[in-house]
């Protein structure tokens, strides 16, 4: 038999309420064991309070060749960033 355990991507939310972050991958026979393995592999140093796993093959990703059209348009919208605006110092913190 010997079919390989599928690959899972692991996402962990740390202590401070930030978003789940991709931390790596691992192999497991199913989702439940993937979560247990993730606990044992990726939280050895107290890194997290919540774990998501998803089968690697189930991830839909943007195509690398679309990088230009997908991301470059936002380059020109500099006004979205707070540093675009000059606020006089007298106004104080904003």
């Amino acid at each position, binding site marked *: *038999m*010997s079919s390989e355990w599928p690959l899972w991507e692991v996402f962990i939310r740390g202590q401070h309420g930030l978003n789940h972050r991709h931390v*790596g991958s*691992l*192999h497991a026979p199913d989702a439940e064991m993937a979560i247990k393995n993730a606990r044992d*592999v990726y939280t*050895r*140093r107290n890194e997290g309070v919540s774990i998501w796993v998803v089968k690697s093959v189930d991830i839909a990703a943007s195509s*690398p060749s679309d990088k230009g059209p997908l991301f470059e348009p936002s380059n020109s919208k500099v006004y979205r960033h707070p540093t675009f605006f000059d606020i006089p110092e007298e106004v104080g913190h904003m």
Partner: protein
Amino acid sequence: MYAQVIKSEGAKPRGEMSPEEIAFQERIDRGEKIEPKEWMPEGYRKTLIRQIGQHAHSEIVGQLPEGNWITRAPTLERKAILLAKVQDEAGHGLYLYCAAETLGVSRDELLEKLHNGSMKYSSIFNYPTLNWADIGAVGWLVDGAAIMNQVPLQRTSFGPYSRAMIRICKEESFHQRQGYDIMMKMARGTPEQKAMAQDALNRFWYPALMMFGPSDKDSVHSAQSMAWKIKINTNDELRQKFVDQTVPQAEYLGLTVPDQHLKWNEEKGGYDFSEPDWSEFYDVLAGNGPCNRERLGARVKAWEDGAWFRDGLVAHAEKAEARRAAAKIAAE
């Protein structure tokens, strides 16, 4: 390092590169990261699989020499520290296999190649750990040498490899320190302990120097790998840096580096030192090191003995999935 004598493929002068290859090289030169689904030369992909695979194999075979002392660690705390450290190595192997898998090879395929001898692991793990100070020497010298190589590799061009190295370096910082901590205790302990410490240094010094691979003048694959930024420094650069860093640490311990030609060279700002015996290095690579058979044998045995366990869990997962599907149909 943990990846020695990696055969690099597809070295080409710029004039012979295709437009795609030129664009690829320019991205690397600009410091961009290459991600798995992006176009890459076949040689880059193959060389990386070989290098990351060998690095991963080294981590898991590297569990064995230190694992050899887990049941004999002299205190409960030392036992826990050593176990945690060897466990980290399994973790590092796991991260690296996952990085290699993004290149289109499976972990099982890589393990198969380790087991049938067609892929190698670092020569250092074919040396035995004979006394407790060896556990200190492995942490201090072997991890020390590894870190020397891994820190720059955090900047390597392949994204998943770089991210694995960042994670590994973060976790590894305690490994070398725990090794040196053992050496300090031993070097300042009873005469017997000090003798063990010196003995460990005597046996691990040259094998540690060999970890960086053959001299640059004999290292035929370096140039292409360096152009691709999957090798950052030359073997000799790293070896020199390692010696310069380690000699004062040995002096602090009151131990003698087993090299009568070791001498500070003011002009080059580093130590002159003796080359390791490269014929021994090639013997070890060819399978004739003191522990090659035991190390590979232990890995193959673990894998073969575990087949029923891995298969059993797959079978259960499939049955459970089928049962869930059947229950869903029945409910509808």
